[in-house]
């Protein structure tokens, strides 16, 4: 028996959220007293790094024409079955959200996405997962003997657990994919919002798209990503992929800085799990202050430049 972890790569490096999944898998495998197996596509990947975080073996799944191809979940499922995996772990990225349900069906497994905790014990497979868009958590018990888990990024600290990691190749059949990629448009050189440890976010208080330079500068200085409130993306000041909240994306960075955002309940839903929340707003009555750890009452156009020069100092 084993715990299997599927990893995603970006520019030939394992993504941070995938390493988190590996660390989770390593702790779970120890708890269950079974082996930890890592697997990935296109892996010229670095097995030393996998061993560092607890992988005892690595299965190179070979090249798939594309990670979102419809053959990908079948391959992951079959490779997991080949090592008798009882738990299959992925990151709850867009890719993970597409793969994990399909793997659950082909492995006849119970599925939990958006998972934020390890199970209570090896015998009680109950995990905590986010529900109601960040407004609550649910404890879910998975009943099938095989389980598929997709983990919320930034929910687990990365810890080392050095092991010797052996490589093997998976030689199973791979069916042709019906899904063909026509084109890909990746924003390169920027930290992905869902993976970012620091997020600087702007609202309608910033008055217009021309004022986002200081938001981006601040984010860059902290190696963070930028986000925005819903009206800001509705007015096309910022791309919709930056919209956080109940109907946008849910994030949980270590630090969330909200500038000129009032803190409506729908906005808070997407960001309230952030570890530290800083609010900058000229209105001392802004509801966001109630959800904040640190607050500055002031004009963004005066406060933010001061923060930028302090960051540069």
């Amino acid at each position, binding site marked *: 028996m084993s715990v299997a972890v599927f990893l995603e790569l970006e520019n030939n490096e394992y993504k941070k959220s995938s390493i988190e999944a590996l660390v989770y898998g390593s702790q779970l495998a120890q708890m269950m007293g079974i082996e930890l197996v890592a697997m990935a596509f296109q892996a010229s990947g670095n097995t030393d790094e996998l061993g560092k975080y607890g992988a005892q073996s690595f299965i190179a799944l070979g090249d798939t024409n594309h990670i979102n191809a419809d053959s990908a979940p079948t391959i992951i499922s079959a490779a997991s079955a080949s090592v008798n995996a009882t738990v299959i772990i992925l990151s709850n990225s867009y890719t993970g959200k597409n793969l994990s349900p399909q793997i659950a*069906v082909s492995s006849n497994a119970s*599925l939990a996405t958006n998972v934020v905790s390890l199970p209570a014990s090896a015998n009680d497979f109950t995990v905590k997962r986010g529900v109601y868009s960040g407004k*609550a958590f649910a404890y879910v018990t998975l009943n099938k003997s095989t389980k598929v888990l997709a983990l919320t990024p930034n929910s687990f600290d990365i810890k080392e657990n050095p092991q010797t990691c052996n490589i093997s190749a998976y030689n199973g059949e791979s069916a042709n994919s019906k899904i063909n990629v026509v084109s890909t448009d990746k924003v390169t050189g920027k930290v992905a919002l869902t993976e970012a440890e620091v997020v600087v976010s702007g609202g309608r208080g910033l008055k217009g798209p021309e004022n986002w330079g200081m938001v981006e500068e601040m984010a860059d200085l902290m190696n963070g990503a930028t986000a925005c409130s819903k009206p800001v993306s509705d007015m096309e000041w910022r791309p919709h992929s930056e919209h956080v909240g109940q109907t946008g994306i849910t994030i949980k960075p270590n630090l969330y800085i909200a500038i000129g955002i009032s803190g409506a309940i729908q906005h808070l839903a997407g960001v309230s799990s952030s570890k530290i929340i800083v609010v900058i707003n000229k209105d001392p009555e802004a509801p966001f202050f109630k959800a904040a750890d640190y607050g500055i009452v002031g004009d963004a156009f005066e406060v933010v430049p001061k923060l930028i020069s302090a960051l540069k100092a």
Partner: protein
Amino acid sequence: MKVLVCMSVVPDTTTKIQFNSDKTELQKDGVQFIINPYDELAITKGLEIAEANNGTVTVIHVGPAENDPSIRKALSMGVNEAIRVNSIAYDAQFVAHEIAQHATEYDLILTGRESIDFNGGAVCGLLAAELGIPSVNVVTEIQYADGNCTMTRDIDGGRETVSCPTPCVASAQKDLCEPRIPNMRGIMAARTKPLNVVAASGAAEYSNISSFESPAPKSGVKMIDADNAEELINILKNDLKVI
């Protein structure tokens, strides 16, 4: 050309989420229930595609009779007919399995990117895998022509465009369209459109929720004077070590 849209019914986005005293159930008193916002987009896009291709749209919902007003709203948006599987929606796997029993005759099946209550984002992939057809999640654009869909989807750190033959399942992301608002004629017509209630075929065997938990409240905000804004950076760097 037949489109099936999967629709969930969720607490309005302004709802303060609270649970009963043993934390096993949502407190529903005074909570208004609405069509899941992403499913409104899926319905609207389904209608646009069906209208352009001489097709029909069916919505399917797994839930109790108290959700019928939301189903009627979908019908008033222009949907032709509705199916309600009369059961509690135990989990995404149960829901997908129930929908799969009624989903074999459609060219295009749409879901929302996720339900804003359960947040599984799972029904699209589950349903596709059960039916053995392609799953394309978080789509912001769909072009349908001659049994083929060309779709743009969000991927981690960007977007991609894919094409696949129908039947297929896709999940609606913001930007797909603006939700259609029912007009008076639609509301009148909806009253007599078919809403077929069917029994569930399977049991909830995959998972169960033992309890809910509310997030720990913040301990209170510490204010920093705007004149000493730099102090914030010092705290973040040296005390909290988050940057």
